[in-house]
């Protein structure tokens, strides 16, 4: 094992040594920057094309012709991010590549919640690039402070047959072994949520208690756990809805309680 400062020193030396100067290839960090920028550009083009297709279908009041959808750019970039990761194993740039692969290398939203509501098979599918990246992150970057989003991604995968086993295992390790409080909080939340949503109070309850006791000052708690607790305590059938005040689109303030005496249909929604 090379320590992190030592590794950084080696990178610096490699950059300044005359032998390295003959190698005109840009370093990993620069390659990552270019790769990420290229991906963002292609993703924007893809989203624009998709948006136009949907807008046109809506104008004609037709279903969008999905066969005309361009291919998302993820597929072309996966081998590039993999190659870069392999060239800089153990570095923070590798972690960036692996986090990208984790986010973009899976089967995406439809694998997580099939449109027809059917449960996908429990048997593990062919190991997808996201889970391969997850394994590498666990092996080489467990101590990184950059893993809170990773834990959230694992939380979704812990709810899906096929990735459930590995995701649960990784979350348990992160919750115990990460030296960073935010990461541990995100991992505990990731363990708690699937149980909570399945109504498994026996598993969820001690994890909620642990978050309340030791993690109330984390961002994860304030942004995600507090809402869950608020919902449990105030937003169940039979409870008086907690009041709130908001401003309508004409700039006029109103309260939910202004509507006492009426049956209220409260709709959290969006066009997107």
């Amino acid at each position, binding site marked *: 094992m090379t320590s992190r400062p030592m590794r950084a020193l080696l990178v610096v030396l490699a950059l300044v040594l005359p032998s390295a100067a003959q190698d005109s290839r840009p370093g990993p960090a620069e390659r990552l920057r270019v790769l990420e920028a290229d991906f963002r550009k292609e993703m924007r083009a893809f989203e624009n094309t998709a948006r136009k297709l949907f807008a046109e279908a809506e104008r004609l009041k037709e279903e969008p012709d999905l066969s005309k959808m361009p291919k998302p750019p993820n597929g072309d970039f996966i081998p590039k991010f993999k190659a870069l990761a392999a060239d800089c194993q153990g570095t923070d740039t590798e972690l960036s590549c692996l986090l990208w692969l984790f986010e973009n290398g899976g089967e995406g939203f439809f694998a997580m919640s099939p449109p027809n509501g059917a449960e996908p098979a429990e048997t593990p599918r062919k190991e997808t690039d996201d889970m391969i990246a997850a394994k590498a992150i666990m092996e080489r970057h467990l101590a990184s402070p950059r893993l809170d989003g990773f834990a959230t991604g694992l939380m979704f995968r812990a709810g899906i047959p096929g990735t459930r086993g590995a995701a649960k295992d990784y979350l348990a390790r992160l919750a115990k072994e990460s030296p960073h409080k935010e990461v541990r909080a995100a991992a505990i939340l990731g363990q708690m949520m699937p149980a909570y949503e399945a109504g498994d109070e026996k598993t969820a309850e001690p994890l909620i208690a642990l978050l309340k006791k030791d993690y109330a000052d984390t961002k994860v708690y304030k*942004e995600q756990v*507090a*809402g*869950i607790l*608020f*919902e449990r305590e105030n*937003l*169940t*059938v*039979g*409870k*008086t*809805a907690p009041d*709130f005040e*908001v*401003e*309508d*689109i004409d700039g006029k303030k*109103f309260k*939910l*309680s202004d*509507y*006492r*005496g*009426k*049956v*209220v*249909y*409260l*709709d*959290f*929604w*969006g*066009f*997107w």
Partner: protein
Amino acid sequence: MLPHEKEMVARKKNQPFALLGISSDADRESAVERMKKEGITWRQAMDGSTSGPLATKWNVRGWPTIYILDHKGVIRYMDLRGEELEKAVDELLKEVPAAPKN
């Protein structure tokens, strides 16, 4: 969702019923424009994004999330849709005491 909501609002125009929309759209301008274009007449507030303050506080993680409250402000139903939802609203409307006549 939207067509049924419009129908419901029209059908219950003279009843003690209110539809309140909390929009999680991030682009306020285009959302408001579409609301006008779609002929949405009921009251709307913008929460800013899917992680807006109210959606965060109420732990909204799926859209739409719908709460049906009775005339006393008590949560009576969640997650109903379509016909089932309207039937529930109709039942609750029967519970509303008749307005005193002057």
